[in-house]
């Protein structure tokens, strides 16, 4: 889960991590009163959208006076960045930057740890730095039961700064950023750029945080910040039924048990010349209630011309699955052709039960998918 920069900044402020003074606004008049209230002269107006590349899209503008700030706010509020409409901006002090750095804490799959990542190459995309000049990026794995002792925080800060006064400011910031990560179950806390101002202050000029979805159950405050877009709302609705759903835009709706098999089903549809409408994992079991809810979800997509049900019956036997499908389709009336492929325990019995029903029953995954593609 992602949050806006201004929300990240609020979390930073609370942890005592220095940020540029600023305020979130939803209209031009709010921007102007914030500009005055904060006593700003040179200031920056930043679009608040849940995507990267704001600067390149023209979503960040600097103004030297009230008129320029007003013009910037008018230009940015309402603009579209990667399909998202900007409904909020942050107006903030435009600090005089002497140097820019990169700093983050991230969950690292390979180290199986949280890793501190730092570089003197700040303000640019870190992936680019990593690809072109990997030697300029430092990574330090963190022991979870130790955290960041003073020496380690100072060692890290000294990798960024030559002046000891900056190391002294920086190491506390590093420790506080880690505390924030643990306290909020973040999977990423990124400051890019971390800047040194011309008057010698260290400031987090951006605040990017991602959170672990698995931990939201114990982070009610973070969860309350979630702003799903239209696609994510459908995904969330599916999740409340115990499904994992992703809309893809094709014509063959898929219902599969298990994420890996669901991905493989999509891939094979493409391989056989069709277009999958979605990824849908209905989970381990396949009781009638679940099938009904999943069908409703698939049929709500008007692009769907064929439905493909691919179930591996393991612990749940195929004859039980077939019984469930038949009873589910007593409740759902649809003209859309349905291809069912059951495999696993008692598959013959399961397929036998589907004979004489309107379903197209197939034996192998390849056969089922070929049939579905033909029926589009």
């Amino acid at each position, binding site marked *: 889960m992602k949050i806006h920069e201004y929300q990240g900044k609020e979390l930073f402020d609370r942890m005592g991590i220095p940020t540029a003074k600023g305020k979130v606004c939803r209209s031009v008049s709010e921007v102007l009163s914030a500009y005055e209230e904060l006593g700003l002269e040179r200031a920056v107006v930043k679009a608040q959208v849940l995507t990267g590349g704001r600067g390149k899209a023209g979503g960040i503008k600097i103004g030297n006076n009230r008129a320029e700030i007003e013009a910037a706010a008018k230009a940015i509020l309402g603009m579209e960045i990667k399909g998202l409409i900007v409904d909020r901006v942050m107006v903030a002090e435009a600090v005089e930057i002497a140097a820019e750095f990169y700093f983050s804490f991230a969950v690292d799959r390979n180290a199986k740890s949280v890793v501190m990542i730092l570089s003197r190459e700040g303000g640019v995309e870190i992936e680019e730095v990593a690809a072109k000049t990997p030697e300029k990026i430092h990574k330090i794995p963190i022991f979870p039961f130790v955290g960041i002792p003073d020496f380690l925080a100072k060692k890290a800060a000294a990798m960024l700064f030559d002046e000891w006064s900056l190391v002294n400011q920086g190491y506390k910031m590093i420790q506080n950023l880690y505390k924030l990560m643990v306290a909020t179950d973040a999977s990423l806390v990124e400051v890019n750029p971390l800047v040194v101002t011309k008057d010698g202050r260290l400031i987090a000029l951006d605040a990017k945080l991602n959170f672990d979805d698995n931990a939201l159950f114990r982070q009610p405050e973070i969860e309350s910040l979630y702003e799903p877009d239209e696609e994510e709302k459908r995904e969330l609705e599916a999740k409340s039924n115990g499904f994992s759903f*992703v809309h893809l835009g094709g014509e063959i709706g898929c219902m599969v048990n298990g994420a890996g098999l669901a*991905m493989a089903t999509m891939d094979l549809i493409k*391989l056989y010349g069709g277009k999958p409408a979605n990824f849908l994992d209905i989970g381990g079991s396949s009781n009638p209630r679940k099938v009904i809810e999943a069908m409703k979800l698939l049929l709500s997509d008007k692009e769907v011309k064929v439905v493909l049900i691919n179930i591996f019956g393991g612990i749940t036997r195929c004859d039980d699955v077939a019984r469930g499908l038949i009873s589910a389709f007593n409740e759902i009336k649809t003209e859309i052709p349905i291809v069912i492929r059951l495999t696993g325990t008692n598959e013959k019995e399961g397929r036998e039960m589907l004979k004489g029903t309107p379903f197209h029953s197939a034996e192998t995954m390849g056969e089922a998918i070929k049939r579905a593609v033909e029926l589009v």
Partner: protein
Amino acid sequence: MSILIDKNSKILVQGITGRDGGFHASKMKEYGTRIVGGTSPGKGGALHDGIPVFNTMTLAVKETAADTSIIFVPAAFVKDAIMEAAESGIKLIIVITEGVPTLDYIAARHYAVAMGARIIGPNCPGLISPGKSLVGIMPGNIFTPGRTGVISRSGTLTYEVVYNLTRAGIGQSTAVGIGGDPVAGLYYIDLLQMFQGDPDTDSIVMIGEIGGDAEERAAAFIKDHVTKPVFSFIAGQTAPADKRMGHAGAIISSGTGSAREKIAALEAAGVTVVDEPAKIPAKIKALV
């Protein structure tokens, strides 16, 4: 032989009085796995399907001399359960539970490693050495003893592949579901190394999916250290970027983790990569 578990492995079920824990404890026992006990705090002294229930892991290990445990407790309690198992002397911990907070898992894993224990999972179907021991939620009847090792990030896709193998007369030495989370326990390289060293494994099937670069790392390892033939299928070739495909770890982010890169790396390492899971048995028969 097999890897990690065999007919002598003694298993404890953590969370044996829960719905899933209880159901699968009975299923595993029925398969022939030596389920020697289970834990459920406050319910010590009871029996589940003839299996003794203990209050703590320490007591359970003392009474049964178990070496392996399987965890079914709810996600919020997994961190504690892993540490309890490791502290009690268990050497292999299998975590079935889905939805474990990442920072919990990272901490528990550090603790387990310090105690000398290994972990498989979380969010995995467990593992099986067919005909010897099943420690997980896999349907035992689709497996058959044999000489092909299987490693997979997925559940039902593994069953699909194994089912095809079994029907083609290709049995399995051990099949391991390493789980769908971004941070997990034993992973491709650990298991490739074990299968390479197992005299009863002739070939290896590796089922991967989008997200992270573990398949690429495995490819580099195979190139230098694995002489047995490796066969692979990578799921998620049609997955869009920045969308989580069911598994917490199955996501293409910041331009990395796509299926194309993984397939290219594996092919460059001499791995036979198929575009349909059903094609694996014929490829194995042709090469082994």
